[in-house]
């Protein structure tokens, strides 16, 4: 049986699933319910001098009839007093001593202010500290959040102040709104950070109401850019995590954040080197209960693959990402269409023809229909619904011309109908780097 117990930079927890700092971790009452549902840890809604929020605060991108492919927020840090938050941290830790409670912090960029909040958080019982250098909206206008994270020297300096007094692990949360995230990660490391979390939300405007012409979310007829998260951002988050994880100058544990909605995404972040993952949008969409399948699904996958602990597979995909110049130019695949399962939608044909390399053909274009009439006999009706795909609608791949781009395979709606088959070229592997150095 898989063992999901995790040790993140010295913070122990029953599983790697943490709630990210945000609305689901706003209060002790919520976090205790989350722990009851199965979450292994929670990063408290960022604590600092209480702010005033606006309404509305969230907006989303729907896709293909599904809600919230991506979510955007303009909510600031906690609107409750520091004392209230710290008192509740103490309460939660008393009742849930084995779960991870991490205090997310954001205060004015003054050394003594940081010293004070760090000491008070630790006195309350926090297992670790997460420095919010990533929040991209509102707070950044006041010199906090991503305003710190975007300037590596500031990030290094404030991390240093925190480390002067911290007794628990210090996690620096990075913003993706920066040209090269490795510079910020290295700066945090220089400042003494024990771990990193990435990514915070991405600067975004989700859309515009085409009746009022007001972008969303609408606050009295105006809007403001927010932070984007949810399933849509996972590919960006995975890339940035990979950048940090493979950078030899960083080398500290990572808590992966960005579009984790289930166990599969969690496994992906861990395969790219993360020790824990943090979830916010999915919990906002469906509630804390989603963690049940995360734990169950990850455990089942680990059992199937023979991994006993998170460490058994953590980082295994990191070496499988390289620079383009090291890819094998002589590796070749071609598309093959299974004529038995092809349903004749011909999406691969038009995708290849218009969007790729013009090597999928319809050999026998159907004759233009003469006069179509309603069938009246039963055999015709049966043919219409139950018959095999007409041969004229099954496309053919010209393998000699196929460049193996994958597009047809990606658009085919039928599982395993198009496969990409390896072709033996007989040539040894050769990368662009090898070819141009030769």
């Amino acid at each position, binding site marked *: 049986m898989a063992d999901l117990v995790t040790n993140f930079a010295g913070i122990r927890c029953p599983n790697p699933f943490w709630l990210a700092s945000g609305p689901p971790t706003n209060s002790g009452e919520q976090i205790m319910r989350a722990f009851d549902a199965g979450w292994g840890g929670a990063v408290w809604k960022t604590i600092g001098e209480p702010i005033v929020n606006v309404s509305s605060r969230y907006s989303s991108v729907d896709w293909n*009839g599904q809600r919230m492919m991506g979510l955007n927020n303009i909510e600031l840090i906690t609107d409750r007093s520091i004392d209230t938050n710290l008192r509740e941290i103490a309460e939660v830790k008393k009742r849930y001593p084995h779960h991870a409670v991490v205090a997310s912090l954001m205060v004015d960029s003054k050394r003594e202010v940081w010293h004070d909040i760090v000491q008070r958080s630790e006195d309350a019982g926090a297992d670790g500290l997460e420095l919010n250098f990533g929040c991209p909206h509102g707070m950044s206008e006041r010199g906090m959040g991503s305003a710190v994270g975007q300037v590596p020297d500031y990030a290094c300096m404030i991390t240093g102040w925190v480390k002067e007094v911290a007794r628990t692990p210090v996690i620096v949360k990075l913003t993706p709104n920066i040209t090269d995230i490795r510079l910020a990660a290295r700066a945090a490391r220089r400042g003494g950070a024990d771990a990193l979390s990435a990514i915070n939300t991405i600067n975004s405007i989700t859309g515009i109401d085409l009746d009022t012409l007001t972008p969303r979310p609408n606050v009295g007829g105006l809007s403001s850019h927010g932070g984007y998260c949810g399933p849509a951002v996972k590919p960006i988050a995975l890339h940035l995590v990979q950048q940090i994880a493979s950078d030899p100058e960083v080398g500290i544990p990572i808590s992966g954040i960005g579009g984790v909605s289930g166990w599969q995404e969690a496994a992906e972040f861990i395969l790219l080197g993360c020790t824990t993952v943090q979830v916010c949008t999915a919990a906002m969409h469906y509630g804390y209960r989603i963690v049940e399948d995360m734990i169950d699904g990850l455990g089942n996958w680990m059992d199937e693959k023979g991994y006993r602990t998170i460490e058994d597979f953590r980082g295994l995909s990191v070496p499988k990402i390289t620079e383009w110049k090291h890819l094998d130019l002589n590796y070749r695949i071609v598309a093959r269409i299974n004529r038995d399962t092809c*349903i004749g*939608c011909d999406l691969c*044909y038009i995708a290849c023809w218009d969007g790729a390399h013009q090597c999928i053909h319809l050999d026998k274009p159907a004759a233009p229909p003469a*006069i*179509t*009439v*309603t069938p009246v006999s039963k055999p015709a009706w049966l043919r219409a619904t139950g018959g095999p795909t007409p041969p004229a*609608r099954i496309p053919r791949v010209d393998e000699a011309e196929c460049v193996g781009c994958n597009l047809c395979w990606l658009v085919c709606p039928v599982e395993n109908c198009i496969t990409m088959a390896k072709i033996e070229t007989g040539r040894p592997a050769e990368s662009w780097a090898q070819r141009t150095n030769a």
Partner: protein
Amino acid sequence: MIPRNLERFPDLHPAFDAQSAVVEANRCLYCFDAPCTAACPTHIDVPRFIKKIATGNLRGSAQTILDANILGLSCSRVCPVDVLCEGACVLHRYNKQPIEIGRLQRYAMENAKGVVLAPRAQPANFRVACVGGGPASLSCAAELRRHGASVTVFDNRPLPGGLNTYGVAEYKLRPSDSLREVAMVRAMGVEFRQAAVGEAVSLEQLEREFDFIFIGVGLGAMERLGLPGDHLPGVIDALRFIERYKTQPDFQTGRTVIVIGGGNTAIDAANAAVRLGAENVHLFYRRSEKEMPAFPFEYDHSKVEGVRFHWMAQPVAIVEQDGRAAAVKFLRTRLGHPDSQGRRTPEPIPESVYEVACDMVIPALGQTRLTAMLHLEMDGGGIAVDRPTGRTSNPKYYAGGDCVNGGREVVDAVADGKRAALGMVNPLGTVKNG
């Protein structure tokens, strides 16, 4: 419009709401050169109109539908989609439900606002009389108007729309929806005149006043049984039965109803009798279940409605009691050799007569031809036309719909009407096919 019919005949398939329409629209694969479009007699660009529902472009969606089929609303309700677009959906081959094209089309037609059909590029300056106010004529007239021709529709009924107004089962299409379509065609500039051509207006007069005449008169009254007692009170043919319950508030069905015939109209009448309150509805057909011409889904639906089916029974007489129909006498049949269409011919079994009591008999034996007054070449009982252009043996006359095809679906009539309009407009087409 009979208010009680709203409750007696609720929609067979409920309309989509906005969210479910978008979800269903997004299920559409957007096939290239889609089979559903090929299967539609009017070739509506189905993936295109569905995609527009998904993007929230309802006006564009409705325009896409109407561009190919001016009766897109009624077709969305009455088309036998299982044997047309939805029957051709590729998802059948992937163990999935086909896209609900009919319901999506209805959603677009009922919810789009500000629909405007652009004029066609090819102008037409001639005048056309469309005889008959049903789907074929409406389609022909609308297409001609888009080319700029001047069109007058002649219909002898108080309300235009033909069978869409008077003859379609109420749970599929209501007269008000049919009349909405008539109003749309009228708004395009088509003139409507209530007049019986051949009586109030002569064909000679039409020939003088108009450059072309489109015959879209449909079929005539239903065939009589031709049996003793078929004129008795209590005997009413299926089309008259349907027309009356749709138009007469006090129309009463019988308590025990016998429907004679195995086609879709027989089933419509039998189902209606159930919903109108008949206690027992029996449908008798002289062949077996297998030979019944009704669509399988219509048959399945009718069984659910509670109609009882009786096979291999040929009526021989209607029995009178107190001056009304009181029973039908049947002979049992057996199936003999296949006829020219491959259906086995029923042969009555001598001495097998039996009697079934009833208080209403609804024969549904198909319709008679209405075209006796025309001096046009006929083809198997229908007006002979060049199918791609609808042109008849007289180059001034075009024809389409049931009077040509012998009685098919609304969508077939729409396709015929459109082709005839294009046949008049497009001289190349007429030369090539004429």
